[in-house]
């Protein structure tokens, strides 16, 4: 009988030789069709293996940058609110300054000085208690309570009481007392720059006027970049304006002599100018934070583009390759079917004469 040789092929092996290739091609075809429809590898984990963690970290960076970008809009809103409130304060201060420049003790009454002071102080209180969302923008981190107390409240506010007390202590009378007319301009100047000024600084300011925290809020605007995102009522600019408006409001319509009222108007005028300068500095500081956010957003946006590109490089299949693969797999399977049927006919029994 025939000896075994390298040419020997068993009929069983021949018949089944195409089974495995067809199964493999069918499974590859299913995978390729999934990839064709999703544009991504069918089994990302198996495709990436050890790189999976890297790919995930890229996706997570994308998520983190998207979160920061969307959070920055909240921070920007709050900064814009603060900026427009500061602008309103500045413009009211400018109006006050103009009023004071045209005021003279002889021609105008003290009552107009008082009106100027009152309306300016009310406008300052409204602007200082501006909110963005539920947060008071000038409250520092203590953003849940209105930073500036109502000066004109009933019963009398602590600030008003403290001013009356200081005046009484200095001159022995209240400003509304006719005896106050004897106070000289220089004595008034001394009072305004001494005991009166002290009420608008340090502990007295915090106790009578401001609920704000001196610690400003901060936020992460880009990975690792934390910036100060607010200012607070304890800044000198607010104190100077409040001081100027309060002196006008308290001593303008009082029994003081014309010379003393002129001294009040002069002192107020100088404080308002100082206050406006301070506020301009604060606005500049907030403006630089706003531009830092804008540049962080634009740099994060270009980073996002790069990161998303990298993720796509890892995750995505080439559409042309997949299409070509599907074509060649379909051809391969068709050829395997064809070959299987041909092999079935390749059998000696087919060619032997029927006895």
């Amino acid at each position, binding site marked *: *009988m*025939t000896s*075994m040789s390298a040419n*020997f*092929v*068993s*009929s*069983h*092996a021949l*018949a089944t*030789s195409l089974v*495995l290739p067809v199964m493999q091609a069918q499974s590859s075809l299913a995978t390729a069709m999934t990839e064709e429809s*999703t544009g*991504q*590898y*069918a*089994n*990302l*984990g*198996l495709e*990436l*293996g*050890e*790189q*999976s*963690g*890297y790919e*995930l*970290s890229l*996706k*997570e960076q994308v*998520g*983190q940058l998207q*979160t920061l970008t*969307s*959070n*920055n809009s*909240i*921070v920007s809103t709050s900064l814009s609110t603060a900026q427009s409130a500061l602008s309103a304060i500045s413009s009211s201060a400018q109006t006050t300054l103009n009023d004071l420049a045209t005021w003279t003790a002889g021609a105008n009454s003290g009552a107009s000085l008082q009106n100027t002071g009152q309306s300016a102080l009310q406008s300052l209180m409204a602007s200082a208690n501006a909110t963005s*969302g*539920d*947060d008071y923008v000038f*409250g*520092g*981190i*203590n*953003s*849940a*309570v209105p930073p500036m107390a109502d000066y004109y409240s009933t019963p009398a506010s602590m600030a008003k009481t403290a001013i009356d007390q200081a005046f009484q202590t200095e001159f022995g009378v209240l400003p509304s007392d006719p005896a106050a007319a004897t106070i000289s301009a220089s004595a008034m100047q001394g009072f305004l720059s001494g005991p009166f000024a002290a009420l608008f600084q340090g502990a007295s300011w915090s106790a009578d006027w401001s609920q704000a*925290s001196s*610690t400003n*809020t901060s*936020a*992460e605007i880009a990975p690792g970049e*934390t910036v100060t995102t607010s200012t607070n009522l304890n800044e000198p600019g607010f104190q100077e304006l409040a001081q100027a408006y309060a002196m006008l409001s308290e001593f303008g319509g009082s029994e003081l002599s014309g010379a003393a009222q002129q001294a009040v108007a002069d002192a107020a005028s100088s404080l308002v100018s100082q206050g406006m300068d301070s506020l301009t500095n604060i606005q500049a500081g907030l403006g630089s934070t706003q531009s830092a956010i804008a540049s962080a957003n634009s740099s994060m946006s270009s980073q996002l583009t790069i990161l998303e590109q990298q993720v796509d490089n890892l*995750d995505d299949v080439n559409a042309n390759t997949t299409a070509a693969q599907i074509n060649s797999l379909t051809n391969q399977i068709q050829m395997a079917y064809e070959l299987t049927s041909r092999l079935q006919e390749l*059998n*000696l*029994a087919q060619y*032997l004469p029927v006895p």
Partner: protein
Amino acid sequence: MSLSTAFNVISSSFAVNSGQTAVVANNIANANTPGYSREIANVVTNSYGGADVASVTREANAALLEHVSSSTSQAATQQAISDGLATLAQTVDDSSSASSTSGANQNGASPSAMLANLQSALTTYEDSPTSSSAADAVVSAASDLASSLNSGSATVDQVREQADQNMAASVGKINSLLSQFTAANNAVVTGLQTGANIASAEDTRDSIVTQLAQQIGVSTVTAANGSESIYTDSGVTLFQDTPRTVSFTATPTLVDGASGAPVTVDGVPITGANSPMPIQSGALAGYAALRDTLAPEYQTQLDQIAGGLINAFAESDQSATPTLPSLPGLFTTPGATSLPSMNATTGLAAAIEVNPNVDSSQGGNPSLLRDGGVSDPGNPAYTYNTTGSASYTGRIQQLAGAISTTQSFDSSAGLGASSSLADYANASVSWLQGENQQASDSSSYQNALATQATSALSNATGVNLDVEMTNMLNLENSYASTAKLLTTVNSMFSAVLNAA
């Protein structure tokens, strides 16, 4: 030489012809039987000068058979490992089609993705610390992370329990195959002594060895009397004249840290760390590797992540002179009264939960995250926001930073001793997918190899119908010639008898 001798030769010729035809018929009948070795009739000249079928042998090839059984074993090992790891890998899948528990997230539900979500939620909370919805979002992200670790840990348990059940099933098959082998082996030994046809018994024996190789890596040695002994690939005797007992006790519930029972042969463990001769291949080896090494290693990584989380989010005594110990904050385990040591994190991934003190659905207060006091509400020692300011972000910044701060891990989990939580969680995903990819590639490769080996064996020892057909034509011609010879000799006899 006489005419009667011629008759003897003719009759032996018919006998040889029918013997050979029987062999051809048998070969054709088994042409499509996998593992069938073609038979060969050995014809010798007899004392009358005729021919006899002295024996029928089979076309065996021990080397190729060995190759088939070893590649089958390797393929089965890798298949078992790959199946288990694929189940585990599903828990960290981040394909676009992967479903996630939190819906909106496209990075899957892995601890790593959930950790990144928590960090994003903390960043948002940091930018709007007065928003209670931002605080709730942090708590819900933290809760998703805890669930991800819980379900990851449960999946590990499930994979290990499945592997344990598969081991029991595999041991059952091995014992049954060994007892079938006993019968086939006895038939061969007896057949050799009595001179019976043992080809079919030998085929049975080979087929059993190949089936056995699917379950456990084996090697065989044939003794002089034809008896075959089976050893595991590590050298432990499975069969020598009689089958050895393979024993295994299944452990229905395998919790974190618990180890399953080893498979033993005659009391000698052949799987597990304590085995002097551990088996290397076969499905059994794959299940054992999955149950005893791979899944527990991933479990340790999950436990380390859980332990790292509890420690990273812990609260410390904020007094000027701290005296109290640090306590679990946002993440804790039920009834925990102290921080876990990173060297003893067993069971943490299964038990980790969000502290009920910050969970508003359990009556907690999410803003404790900003103010401190999650661990012990009302205790001023753990209060970070001492001024009670609504926009205090110092603590939230610490928490957001904790995820990317380098901390210590137990290096026995295989991912290094020092890393940030975020990197560690990513490294864990890489490790799992890496192992998964390797097992899957290896499984495809070994399967292809086993198919090739099987086909090579079939080509070496199988049946070619065309060859058998040719042989049959030969036999047909030989039968016709012998018949002609018989008629001729018969007429010669008649001529002699008529002449007398």
